[in-house]
């Protein structure tokens, strides 16, 4: 019964917050549905990316580039080549960082719940499987199956709403860019160039 000494610790040093997600994707727009189906069926994608991070205190954006690959089974592999060498492996259960010397840092999502929300949003965006995060966003759609953009606006009660004003995914057939707009004026743009994948799905 003297075991409750340390419970106080958890309250103080849990630095961030995360949300449970539930599946509730209620969209009636036919084009939207097709786009989502299309994205979902690309069980494996890979290519190059360029990321520009615009921060108000910096004169120019922080630019990075590299390659990425994604599959529904093994998660997202994000390999930054410039200006530093860093490989990130994101899955639902862990986040692995491999630096230029090959040193691995593993963080279990269970131990670092603060990682969960951002990695889950990122995985959802790259893979186009939006169900897991749909509870946290109001989803809007523009365009048609060939040229589309999906707007994700965080629902007001969520932690994400404190950070992002909106996230815009756009593409044609496959995803071409992600733009994340933050409330305080910073924003991040990621552009993708897809490599053809040998296995082709969804276009009969």
């Amino acid at each position, binding site marked *: *019964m*003297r*075991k*409750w*000494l*340390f*419970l*106080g*610790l*958890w*309250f*103080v*040093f*849990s*630095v*961030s*917050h*995360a*949300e*449970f997600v*539930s599946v509730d994707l209620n969209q009636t727009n036919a084009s939207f549905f097709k786009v989502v189906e299309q994205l979902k069926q690309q069980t494996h994608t890979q290519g190059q990316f360029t*990321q520009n*991070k615009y*921060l*108000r*205190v*910096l*004169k*120019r954006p*922080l630019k*990075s580039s590299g390659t990425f690959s994604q599959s529904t089974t093994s998660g997202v592999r*994000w390999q*930054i080549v410039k*200006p*530093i060498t*860093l490989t*990130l492996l*994101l899955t639902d259960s862990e*986040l692995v*960082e491999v*630096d230029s010397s090959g040193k691995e840092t593993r963080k279990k999502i*269970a*131990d*670092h*719940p*603060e*990682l*969960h929300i*951002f*990695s889950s949003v*990122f995985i959802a965006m790259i893979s186009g499987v939006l169900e897991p995060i749909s509870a946290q966003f109001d989803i809007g759609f523009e365009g048609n199956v060939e040229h589309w953009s999906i707007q994700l606006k965080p629902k007001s009660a969520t932690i994400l709403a*404190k*950070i992002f004003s909106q996230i815009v995914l756009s593409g044609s057939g496959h995803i071409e860019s992600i733009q994340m707009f*933050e409330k*305080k*004026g*910073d924003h*991040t743009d*990621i552009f993708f160039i897809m490599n053809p994948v040998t296995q082709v799905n969804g276009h009969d």
Partner: protein
Amino acid sequence: MTSRWSQTKWVAVWSLLVLCCALYLGFSFTQGIRVETSVLDLLPKDQSDPIKEAAVAAVSEQVQQKVVFLLGHGDTAQAIKAADSTYERMVKSALFEDIQYQVSASQTQEIYQFYWPYRLTLFSDQFLHWLQIGDFSAMTTTAMKRLYNPTSVVNADLLAQDPLFQLVDFLQNIASASGGLTMVQQRLWAKQDDLHYVFIQATLKNTIFSLQTQTSYQSFFQELKGELTLHSNVRLLSTGAIYYAAAGVASAKQEISTIGLGSLLGVIILVVLVFKSIRPLGFAVLSVSVGVMFGLSACLLIFGGVHLMTLIFGASLIGVSIDYTFHYFTERSAVAHDQVIPNIRAGLTLGLVSSCIGYLALSAAPFPGLQQMAAFSSVGLIAAFFSVVIWYPRLVTMQIKPLSPVLLRRVVAVSMFWRRLPLTGVYVLVSVLLMTSVGILFFANSNDDVRGLQHRPADLLQQDNKIKSIMKLSVANQFYLVTAHSAEAVLAKQKQMLPVLAELKRDGALGGYVALLDMIPDASTQNHAYQILRTEMLSPTSVFMKYFNQLGFDDLFIETMRQQYRHKQPQLLTVDHWQNSSLVSQFPFLWLGKIQDQFVAVVALTDVQDLNALASAELPDGVQFVDYVEDISNVFAKYRDLVTLLVIAAYGIILLLLIIRYRWLQVLLIILPPVLAAVLSLAILTLAGVALNLFMMLALMLVLGIGIDYTLFLTEHPESQSTTLVAILLSAVTTMLSFGLLALSDMPVLQGIGLVVLLGIFFSTVFAPLACLAGIKKREA
């Protein structure tokens, strides 16, 4: 002899006193009586080390008031709903002063703001290492990894405030010590067997040892449980010291009523059989309850509360003080109304004095529990004595039928057993018994482990373990106590301990530790790191300038950044800052402040595996390993020995008193029967494989006290031996009935007491007639 008038005066005085006592008790009850239940509260304060004592007290006080709830459900939304309604109920109940449930963003903000002014000197261990080896580019590379990682949340404000992310890193380093709970939706969660548990912790406002707190808490908990099980199949788990305290009280209440009922039934049957009237019973109840009232009042007055063990031990008063009633009535049945008290006064007084000597000897030990029992028992006995001596002659107006001659004859015949044996035979038998028993006692085992003595119901323990397994955490009863002449020196000592702790952790002796040093690095570490960073920051060719330029900060910003480092002396985070912040309430036990010119902190340990390794680790001066469970067990062992000595000392004093009044042989015969009974009982228990503990020695004290009463009465009243024998038998049977029932108790402490008293009183009664062996002759004065 006392005149009629002065008798009336005494009756008035005594009645007034009893009335005052009743009023005081009534008043105390309305105020709420503090009833301690933990065996630990019986223990003496460890005077040899007041700092350690204060530390243990502070830590246990922190812990005692805590209650933990886990609300589990397969569906997280359901679990949250249950937790929300639990939280609402908790707030409404007004039982708790501090409920930790939803973690607000402002709490996180508060921590950040607290550390912010000291950001220039705080580093995670990794950063410290890089600073020490001068690998500054490792620091900038790490910062860049954070910047370019698409999943990390870095905004302009954070970057501008903490461009190397050193404070963020420092805070995350602390947070990683957290354990099995995770934070989701601003609540803390644990998961086991497909159930999601929400965690709530609270501190009870009032002491858990007050019966009022226990009652209101229990009705709160029952209602909560009822509501949760009625509306959903939420699994409610809860633990905390209050459950054990309440269970202790409930169990003791039951035990006390068992003894009470057992005694009462026994007494009623016996009284009716012997006196052929129910009326002596009323008088017995009167004197016994006056005794209990005074005993309780004495404890409340002297100690401000009463311990359950005292109450239970005090219930033995019934066994002793009822003797007075029995002696009165057996004598009354034989002689005239006004002859009774003069006839029995000497015996009663001697009995009272010998019992009080015994109890006083007990209170000579600096042991609050013993002192309480001694106060309760001696004051109670004195009160019962006065009730009999003062009230009875006035109140007992009815005729008591002479005792049945058949009964008297039988009793005397049985007691003649000893006299029928040849005298030398008796001496040989007694000597052999005594020596064999003493011989056996050399093989006696003792077990003073406090864990065996505490009453810990299985269902509570099971729940406790379940919660532990869900939260994957077990905080040890052991800790390191760090003392030094200044707060800073305490931190420095903790720093010196780090390699030892790391080694213990590596060897698997312990799972982890929590120290103030995690939250406040020592001054030299802070300063040293600052100086290294400062030199590099101020150098125009520094790695950091390159980093700032590469990121694209403007020149003004970079200059402002560098200006922060222009002071040679940084602003260090100290324990004082910490103490004056709101954060200190989250970790009250880690820093105990100033105790007797020394500053004291605790390094708490989790998942302790190897006590010996922890105790024998080489630590800096002023650091000691505290294992208070072990300490308490040692204290029990020490006091078991002490009580044994006190018992012997008490007998020595009684012996001296008796020598004034009786001849040597008679003194021996008065002392021998209870001593033989005590030794024989212990020998039998030893043969049965029962391990002796402190409380059994206390019970032995009781046996000796009651036993000597028997022999004294027999010695003092040779002329009415048969009636005295009946009174003794009556009292023995009553005592055995009540205490014999204790032997069946759930509480190990009570069980031991019950066994010892049962055996001891039985043999005391059997040997008591030995006192009449030598023709009774008082020493001529």
